[in-house]
């Protein structure tokens, strides 16, 4: 009995010991359990995070968001975070971000503004990372690709070509009798015929419907002018050879500008239009000459029976204003090789999935994509896909973007009747000259 008592005591002591050990063990275990749970999704924390700035508006943003989402789904080790901004503030923001070392890892750059980012190495050269992810440059449309090569180096991956195209509301055209059997507009040949075409529309459409919609402010009038100017024999010159002087104060430029101004003056383009896109979208315009990005949005508009053709040739040969969205990597000292590779992976993916982007209306940058079934099966796009071959890009100049701003301002004054076309061109050339001499 004595032995039993002792062993019992030993057992109880052991039990108490075990119990305390267990409780302390558990409380320490609690702390470690709290530690190994990272905030946010566990999967995503391991992924390479890329901030991606875009300046999309007018409907194409939703297509890019879709692409980003799909890319993120397909590439769990890379997380692209898209941040969209107004185009009006976009470059100002981006410049500040690059200068302050807060640049995103990925940014959309217009081909026109590439020179200002190529200078001083504000964006990364892509040769090496492209080689690493196996991006084949030869797959791109040569015309588009050339616009991204500087001194033999690739600085950006072209995403698309977007040009001006002509959208038309079939109902109004039909009512005015300017729609042919194939439901294409009967525009005729030359500038006079085009004016007559709009004239017929003006007579046919209700008073609150614009025969042609074009805003009185912003860049649209400049695009139209640039397209027409380039269609003329001997037109299209912007700078002299060493880019020290603007040279667009010439008869052809004036003729083109006069034509554009004439449309406003004759009220074929009604005054004070702010949002021409929305007018056409809402069925309040018969014709709209704007970028291809309208296609995707207009397709979604209910009760809009529209068609699209490439920019009509009013003068000697086809030419149209165009630009490209390109993907570039802004320079940042914290940028890692891994991020660069991830960014290139995204660029390559976007170019290869150009058909998705084409849904917004753009013409894909890769020739294989343009020929591929997903693209050809889309309505409307093939109508203007060929435009990519005669795009009249802005000339390469580091300050081209701000120089175009000068044109916009002078043309706005023209549209608001504050000056004549002659004055507008002369002022523009003078101000551009000042810019160039800065």
């Amino acid at each position: 009995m004595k032995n039993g008592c002792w062993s019992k005591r030993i057992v109880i002591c052991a039990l108490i010991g075990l119990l305390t050990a267990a409780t302390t063990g558990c409380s320490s275990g609690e702390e470690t359990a709290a530690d190994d749970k990272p905030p946010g999704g566990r999967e995503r924390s391991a992924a390479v995070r890329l901030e991606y700035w875009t300046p999309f508006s007018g409907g194409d943003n939703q297509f890019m968001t879709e692409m980003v989402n799909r890319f993120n789904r397909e590439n769990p080790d890379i997380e692209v975070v898209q941040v969209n901004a107004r185009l009006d503030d976009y470059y100002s923001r981006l410049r500040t971000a690059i200068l302050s070392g807060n640049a995103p890892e990925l940014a959309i750059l217009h081909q026109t503004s590439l020179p200002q980012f190529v200078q001083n190495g504000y964006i990364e050269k892509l040769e090496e990372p492209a080689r690493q992810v196996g991006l084949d440059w030869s797959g791109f449309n040569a015309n588009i690709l050339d616009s991204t090569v500087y001194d033999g180096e690739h600085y950006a991956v072209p995403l698309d070509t977007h040009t001006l195209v002509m959208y038309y509301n079939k109902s109004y055209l039909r009512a005015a009798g300017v729609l042919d059997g194939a439901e294409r507009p009967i525009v005729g040949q030359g500038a006079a015929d085009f004016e007559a075409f709009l004239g017929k529309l003006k007579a046919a459409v209700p008073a609150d419907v614009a025969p042609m919609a074009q805003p009185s402010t912003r860049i649209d009038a400049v695009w139209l002018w640039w397209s027409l100017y380039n269609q003329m024999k001997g037109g299209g010159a912007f700078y002299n050879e060493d880019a020290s002087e603007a040279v667009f104060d010439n008869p052809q430029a004036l003729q083109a500008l006069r034509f554009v101004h004439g449309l406003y003056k004759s009220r074929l383009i009604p005054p004070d239009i702010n949002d021409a896109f929305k007018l056409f979208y809402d069925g309040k315009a018969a014709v709209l000459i704007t970028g291809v990005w309208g296609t995707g949005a207009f397709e979604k508009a209910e009760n809009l029976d529209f068609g699209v053709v490439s920019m009509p040739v009013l003068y000697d040969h086809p030419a149209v204003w165009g630009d490209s969205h390109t993907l570039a990597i802004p320079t940042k000292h914290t940028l890692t090789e891994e991020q660069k590779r991830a960014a290139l992976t995204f660029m390559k993916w976007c170019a290869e999935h150009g058909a998705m982007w084409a849904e917004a209306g753009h013409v894909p940058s890769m020739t294989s994509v343009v020929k591929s079934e997903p693209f050809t099966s889309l309505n409307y796009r093939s109508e203007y896909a060929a435009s990519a071959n005669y795009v009249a890009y802005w000339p390469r100049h580091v300050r081209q973007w701000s120089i175009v701003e000068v044109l916009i301002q002078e043309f706005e004054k023209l549209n608001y009747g504050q000056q004549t076309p002659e004055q507008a061109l002369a002022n523009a050339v003078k101000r551009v000259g000042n810019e160039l001499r800065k």
Partner: protein
Amino acid sequence: MKRIRALIWWFRNQELARKLIIINFILIVLPLCVMGYFAFSRFAATLEKKVGDYQLQTMKQLTLHLDTYMSELDRLTLMPYQYEPIIAFLESNREQGQPLTLEEIKQLNAFVSQVFLNGRIDIMGVSLFGERGASYVVLPESQYVTTYRLDENAGWLKNEQIRYGQSIFIPTHDIASTSGTVYPVFSVARELRSFDSGKKLGYIVIDVDPKVIHRILSQVTLGSRESLYLADRTGGTVVGKDGSAPLRDAASLPGEEEPEGVTHAMADGERLLVAHVTSPVTNWMTVGVVPVSELMKDTILIRNSIMLLGILCVGLAMMMCVFLAFRITQPLRGLIKLMRKVERGDLMVSFPVKQWDEIGHLGKAFNTMVSKLSELGYLLYETEIREKDAQIAALQSKINPHFLYNTLGSISMYAEVEGNREVVKMTNHLSRLLRYSLSGRKERVSLASELEHVKGYMAIQQMRYEDRIDFSLEHDEASLACAVIPLIIQPIVENAINHGIDKGTGNGMIRLACRIDQGALLIVVEDDGIGMTEEQLNEIRTRLRHAKDVGGRSGNGLLNVHRRIVLHFGESYGLTLASMPYRGLKVTMALPALTDKHYLEGGSQHA
């Protein structure tokens, strides 16, 4: 009471091992359970409180963090005061949809750009509404719109705060871009007033992408089933973290008088811990909801591990306990088994004593008892055999006593008729002799009857040996009453005749003397025969001392008698021999001088 008594009764009757196990079980499990229960419940309560405090602190931090951002937005709404043209635009009288001049477009666009650039990238839209019809609305992905009117019924317009020129935060609502895309935004609005006139000029509304709050919220983790969101006073959700379902029961949130705190709510039968903090900037509540069970997950883990460990320990302890109980009581059970064997008569058992505890002592006592018992049994057994042997020997020598009696009777009658007195006498002696030795089944007889028998025997022998034998008998009167074992003297006398007379020549003398000496009855038989050499004497003495052979056919009369006496009365009694060559043999028989009548009778019962 009855039941308790019954329980105690039941317990009392349990096996010792089972009793030990039950006692140990109660001693181990009861304190463990009580201790475990109290420790755990205290621990859980403290933990819940701590977690609640922690959650409140988290909410405070979060709110502070958000407020930094919100204050910035708040300051942005003050920007129109720094821009004269904007104030002028708001003051202007306008028709709906009246186009703007190029100048106005530039100024407004520059202002909005400033707002966008000075603010964060998350600003989605800016709206300016003048009191007299001026309207300038910038929506995401759209050009400015001048046709929009302020919704006079908007809830935030009725808020008192706005009257004092303070900004107001509007919970998440949808705005549609001109291309039809719908964006959820939350807004900050402010009434703008003229300093000079003191009159209301209009409103500025800045729409912000809730993603920014979302991003801040998603960096906070309360638990895997948390719900973290911002809500305004009316219970409308501003923005929630992914998968956060706001409390449906808004009433469970405390009123304005309590800007922060931790409460409990019930949802789907689950207890929720709700921590909320009201921001002084936005007047929004940051609410964190976590199911209590979620918070207590670790506690439950601890509880389960404690329980598991407890059960394990108790199990181990019980196993040890059972083992010990059986180990301790095992020798007892062995002893019981041995006792059963003894009960059944198997005395060839021995308890192995391995330790000198109580059980060891008990075992030793048991062993002693069993060995005593077996010895006693053996003695009894031998006694009875000797008795039987004697009787059988008598029987064998005198088969069919009745026939002999009758024959002897006839011989006696014939001798009587013939007048042969000698024959009659001899026959009668023989008859008596036979009767005594065969019919007497008594265990004890008196010395008197034994002497009678010897006398009869000697009478016959004297006739046989034609008076070559002299027989003398001396005895105390007192000794005659002594109890002796029957047929113990006659074999000695017979031995004396055989040794003393048959082997000797001429007359022989046999003396028989009985006396009581110091409580012992001494019966001495002497002859004057050839006697024995020292060696012969020693051999016989050794045999008397050691031989226990009872079944020997060639039983020496002396040995037989000696063993019977020893078996009956103990080692201190028996025969002693004295002899010298040619001087005869003297056999002294020592018996206890028992005269008790009762003993005489009791002896017969014993047989």
